[in-house]
């Protein structure tokens, strides 16, 4: 009974670590390119985040199950090929079934390959740990990344566009007709500044609750 509980905790721990303690966006500061580039709208942030969750879960599982067969010296090229394969599949699926999102994310879909989070998790975790734990870790880190994208895109969309969930079926116009969107939030400069402030905010929160 106790053993089962311990096991649960182990998986839960792998899962939550990527979301809070080692959040890729706010704690590790990884995968910044898509984080800054496509978070103009919540829709794009969510879409990118979920695409990364899918790639990360698949690549972690495959890399973990092949960990005994891949020789040490060629592991990085092997990881890259595996990751690139899943990214290409995701790209095809998006283009076929969610074309609007595919168009909005543009070149950042194939660039998921060089998202340091994915290679980072493969190298630091999946290459050494069993399959199920790697899956939990992959989904957790992916969701942590999604959380970062979501927060940043929320701020940028509310101020830069005056809407919530624009370009979806649930779009809400937040302000009256006289509201002039603060375009700077949608511009590249706004992305840097908002993310910088969000980082400072999480620093304060983590320090206050002494999570480190």
């Amino acid at each position, binding site marked *: 009974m106790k053993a089962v509980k311990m096991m649960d905790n182990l998986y839960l721990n792998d899962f939550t670590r990527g979301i809070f303690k080692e959040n890729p966006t706010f704690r590790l*500061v*990884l*995968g*910044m*390119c*898509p984080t*800054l*580039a496509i978070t103009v709208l919540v829709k794009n942030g969510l879409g990118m985040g979920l695409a990364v969750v899918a790639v990360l879960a698949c690549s972690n599982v495959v890399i973990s199950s092949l960990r005994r067969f891949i020789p040490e010296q060629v592991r*990085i*090229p092997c990881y*890259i*090929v595996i990751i*690139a*394969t899943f*990214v*290409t599949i995701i*790209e*095809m699926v998006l283009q076929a079934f969610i074309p609007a999102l595919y168009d909005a994310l543009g*070149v950042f879909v*194939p*660039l998921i*390959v*060089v*998202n*340091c989070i994915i*290679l980072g998790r493969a190298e630091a975790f999946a290459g050494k740990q069993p399959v199920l734990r790697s899956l939990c870790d992959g989904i957790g880190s992916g969701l942590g990344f999604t959380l970062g994208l979501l927060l940043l895109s929320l701020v940028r969309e509310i101020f830069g566009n005056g809407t919530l969930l624009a370009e979806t079926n649930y779009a809400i116009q937040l302000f009256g007709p006289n509201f002039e969107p603060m375009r*700077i939030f949608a*511009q*590249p*400069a*706004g*992305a*840097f*500044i908002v*993310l*910088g*402030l969000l*980082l*400072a*905010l999480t*620093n*304060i929160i983590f*320090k206050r609750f002494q999570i480190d």
Partner: protein
Amino acid sequence: MEKLISILFIYILVDNFVLQRFFGICPFLGVSRKMETAMGMGMAVVFVITLSTLVTWLIHYYILVPLGLEFLQLVTFILVIAGLVQLVEIFLRKASPTLYQGLGIYLPLITTNCAVLAVALLAVRQEFTLLESVVFGIAASLGFWMALVIMSGIRERLELTKVPGPLQGTAITLITAGILSLAFMGFRGMLTF
């Protein structure tokens, strides 16, 4: 010729790869602490991007397209870039130990610099010719180098100032980058032809 000059101008200043297009942010944040490392990294990136754009363009138009294998584009490009970085490293170590000492430690980091893959992919997507692609690569990487060097200059001074606790580290670097990006937005105004 006019187009080549405009590519050069646009991708160094107006659409700076780091500050306006968000490619290569990780090395931009990671190795911009010191002017010296920024120079080294910048030079290595210019070298690798120019070379890899040339090679991937040739592979795309002379191997992938004729064989109808465009769906292997991403796997091929990333493998070519990784292989190229290795080759450059081996070659430099043998041919020019001094240059290797300067650039060597940055080379492995370049494989996961998304600017390299981005240039290769965009050159094909935007239907550039071979010459335009190479100029595009040079412009994008020079833009990256410039942003890196400017940033490291600012950060060296930032070291000496008192930054409020929570803003220390990456947060203040990002905000500084935002202000830099704001300044670079001004170049867009020059495009009124």
